[in-house]
């Protein structure tokens, strides 16, 4: 661990919160929007600086900051990043800017509150990606809930938005209980292992807990609890039902955040596997079977969707399954591909969701039956949609290809059956994306409403341009990403393989 000279991570966490407060205080709506956007842009700048300060050749945590917080329980304020987490910071900041821009005109009531919540959400998300103390992590983890609850419930576009917000919150709380239990077990185990006493010798900091030996039976328990807690958020089948509901009822830019930020998978990668390595190796088959089932299940249901948002939600479920299969392969290609794909989600899945929002904003629906022939009316929107669709099923030239190739190679080298499932998922991916493209964008224009639609405006064009450019850059030069997480992935893998039975 190397300490930071300058508390950049704390500033990254606190700045958006401050921005949220300022946005909430300012009286004038337009000024508030501009203030919120400038805070978000400044946040992006800071995260890019953090990436610049980051040294990819160090395996451990960097830029760490440590303060005593609840000294009675030894809870610390400990933040830091490593090669696995660092790139999520700029991407989540970028996603916040994109979400703000896309909702610039579509949010008409309680606008200040809306933008303040988006900033608060960014603050909590940055906290989740940087927290290295389990209690601190749990705090940020739960703090992501209230913004999502209000954002889905207040600005949703479906008639059941309140129910969707409630459903999301209840699901996440259920997962949170399991997480909390696992955290308590881990910390109590630390006290027992060093023959200490229970409040004084508890430990919640991740680097210490990683060093503490954990008895085998407890490892199993902790692994399954953490897996359950994170699987709900990931989401894995059968805990995925909140995602289609939230995507159908919630506003498009929030659905984009939900599908773009894969906090649950990050949790599995950061905590569930490294904290219980023996159990993780032993039970990696559970993870891979769940992953493969999720992959095929989501893909097959996506094939049947008639609504673009439903399709994207199930496609996202299917992609999470593929990432799980890759992580469970416990190979270098699998893990690097999985991290790459998680970063891709923030660009690809969320952009597709935003495009569905643009269509909904113009037409009031994203049902295939109300669309048809949009490519001739809105060539630019069709172009961007097509580009992101290609990236989502991994066509070479886009960043989806190297990620998917690495994941499939990883799965194949660990277990041929899983690789076959991943390949079947890739075929299904092309089938559902292209058949929806055909129904929505091609063919003759049937409805007059479609004929009157305007193509993308400058603001919308600009906000799609950034992710589009990034997926092409990462597609042509995948090593830029792989080099950053290489050393950290090796360390991650080493930890698991040394415990392999």
């Amino acid at each position, binding site marked *: 661990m190397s300490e930071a000279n300058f508390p950049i991570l704390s500033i990254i966490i606190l700045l958006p919160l401050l921005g949220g407060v300022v946005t909430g205080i300012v009286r004038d709506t337009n000024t508030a929007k501009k203030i919120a956007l400038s805070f978000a842009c400044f946040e992006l700048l800071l995260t890019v600086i953090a990436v610049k300060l980051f040294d990819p050749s160090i395996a451990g945590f960097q830029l760490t900051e440590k303060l005593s917080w609840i000294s009675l329980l030894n809870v610390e304020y400990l933040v830091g990043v490593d090669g696995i987490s660092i790139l999520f910071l700029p991407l989540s900041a970028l996603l916040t800017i994109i979400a703000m821009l896309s909702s610039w005109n579509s949010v008409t009531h309680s606008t200040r509150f809306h933008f303040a919540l988006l900033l608060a959400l960014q603050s909590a998300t940055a906290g989740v990606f940087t927290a290295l103390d389990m209690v601190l992590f749990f705090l940020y983890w739960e703090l992501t809930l209230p913004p999502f609850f209000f954002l889905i419930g207040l600005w949703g576009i479906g*008639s*059941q938005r*309140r*129910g969707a917000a*409630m*459903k999301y919150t*209840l*699901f996440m709380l*259920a997962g949170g209980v399991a997480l909390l239990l696992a955290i308590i077990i881990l910390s109590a185990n630390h006290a027992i292992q060093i023959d200490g006493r229970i409040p004084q010798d508890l430990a919640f900091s991740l680097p210490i807990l990683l060093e503490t030996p954990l008895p085998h039976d407890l490892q199993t328990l902790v692994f399954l609890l953490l897996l359950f807690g994170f699987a709900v958020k990931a989401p894995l*089948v*059968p805990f995925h*039902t*909140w995602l289609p509901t939230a995507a159908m009822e919630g506003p498009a830019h929030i659905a984009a955040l939900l599908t773009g930020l894969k906090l649950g998978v990050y949790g599995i990668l950061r905590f569930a596997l490294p904290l219980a390595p023996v159990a993780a190796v032993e039970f990696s088959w559970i993870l891979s079977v769940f992953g493969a089932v999720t992959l095929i*299940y989501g893909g*097959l*249901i996506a*094939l*049947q*969707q008639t609504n673009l948002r439903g399709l994207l939600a199930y496609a996202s479920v299917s992609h999470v399954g593929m990432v799980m299969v890759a992580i469970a392969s416990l190979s*270098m*290609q699998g893990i*690097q591909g999985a991290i790459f794909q998680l970063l891709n989600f923030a660009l690809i899945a969320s952009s597709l969701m935003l495009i569905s929002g643009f269509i909904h904003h113009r037409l009031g629906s994203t049902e295939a039956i109300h669309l048809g*022939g949009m*490519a*001739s009316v809105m060539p*630019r929107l069709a*172009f961007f949609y097509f580009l992101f669709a*290609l990236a989502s099923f991994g*066509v*070479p*030239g886009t960043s989806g*290809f*190297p990620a998917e*190739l*690495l994941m*499939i*190679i990883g799965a*194949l*080298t660990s277990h041929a059956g899983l*690789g*076959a499932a991943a*390949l079947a998922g*890739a*075929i299904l991916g*092309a*089938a559902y994306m*292209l*058949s929806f*493209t*055909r129904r929505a*964008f*091609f*063919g*003759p*224009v049937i409805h007059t409403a479609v004929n009157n639609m305007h193509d993308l405006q400058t603001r919308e064009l600009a906000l799609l341009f950034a992710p589009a450019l990034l997926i092409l850059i990462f597609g042509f*030069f*995948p*090593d830029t990403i*792989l080099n950053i997480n*290489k050393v950290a992935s090796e360390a991650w893998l080493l930890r698991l393989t040394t415990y392999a039975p």
Partner: protein
Amino acid sequence: MDFLAVFIPLFPLLAALFIGIGHLFDRMSGDAGERIISNIAVLAISFSCFIALILLGADLLGMNSGSFSIGQWLGSDTFKIEVTFITTGYNTVLSALFSVLLLIVIRFSVNYMHRETGFRRFFFNLSLFASAMLLLVSSGNIVTTFIGWEIAGLCSYLLISYAYDRPIATINATRVFVTNRIGDAGFILGIGLSYFYAGTINWDALNALAGELTIPTATVIALCFATAAFAKSAQLPFTPWLARAMEGPTPSSAVFYGAVMIHAGMFLIIMLQPIFERAPLAMDALVIVGFATAVYSFTVGLTQTDVKSSYCFAISGQLGLMFLECGLGYWELAAYHLCAHAIIRCYQVLTAPSLMHNVVGNPIKTVSRDIINLRWLYIASIQRFWLDPIADRTLVRPIQGLGQDLSHFDIYVIDRLMGTPASPSRAISSLAQLEQKILSTSQSDFNINQFGHGSGIAGKFFEWTAKILGWFEERLVLQGIGMDIIDIGNKLGHAANTFERLLLKPRYLVLFVFIVLLIAATR
């Protein structure tokens, strides 16, 4: 001269980028724009063609070392992909031949597509395709070959759906792409297995290692790549996609399915010659599939009534023969056959629209008597052996049906098990509403416990726990103890009052003070 190989696919790629960006920002429209676009596309492919010919000449003069690398594209542990180009042998011959054919077709399209609505789109696709194909044939690495392979497939999709307002064209395009995707899965599987067993994904290194692979390993790898080749070169059982693919404009049909892309599968087999020679079973597969496709295409071709369809079956038949030749071990012959077929078919398909001018008045040659009398063969031929319906029945519909069933399962089983919060529209929001509800239903069967509803496993669990606790509260606490508590409270209150009244009487007060003092004194 090796470094020249880099520029062959690069020029068309730059042209495609330029045209694509211009199209996106709606520049270069009208006749002037058309001229710029066609000039760029023709110029780029001319440069590539020129360089490819120089490279071929250099190779014939023995000036090339064999490969040229421009660095690593992707690296993860030992899985390293370098962008390498092969600069000798058959690869240079093919890249020269294909670039010449591409030049001819692109030049031909300039006049053919004049003032068509999708002019820019067409030239963007064609340039991208040229780049992908030239990368495919000159790449020294299996993964970069696959990149070319996949992008060529994508261009094929875009050109089949060229007239995207026609539903048939887009249905066919989707079908063709997904069919080819099955072959791509075989290709990726082949890449994975080569890496796993041979530890390399370079063509040269893999072929050099072929002798060391065990026969089952070589067979599995060869069969994976053979599947990819069968799909791309329209061999059985994938043949029907070729007929669907003829939707696009004629020049694109000529270059994709007549001259260039259709031969990619055959090229893949030729590249893997050492692996196939190590795997007798895979060679048998080539013989069987190649022969079956040749017979099938010949039979179906007899009953076709339009030029493009006859060509389409002639093409798959000729490719079947090439696979047969490879399977029998005549690799050189297959390689020559590929080049010859590409040239002649390019000419034929390009001139297909004006064929009527040349053949008008010629009598149609009838087939021999023996075949004419086979009624069943006629029906089978005209139905193209029902391959498409069979694929629908055995693959497409079961998968869609499974999707439908899972979708129902998701909505009616999983979602219900996981639970949904009660819909706010059905919930009671005010006491007045509750009163109304109680009044509207008869008092006896309205159960106040129905206020809280749960769904899903967790929801039901909590509902039942709440019911049990509610019953406990109602029966035991409120009804059982509740009434008694009031009585006891009353009695206790009376007792306390009595005690206080007694205390306030002076004699008891004095007595109380004395007792307190006594206790204090004994301490």
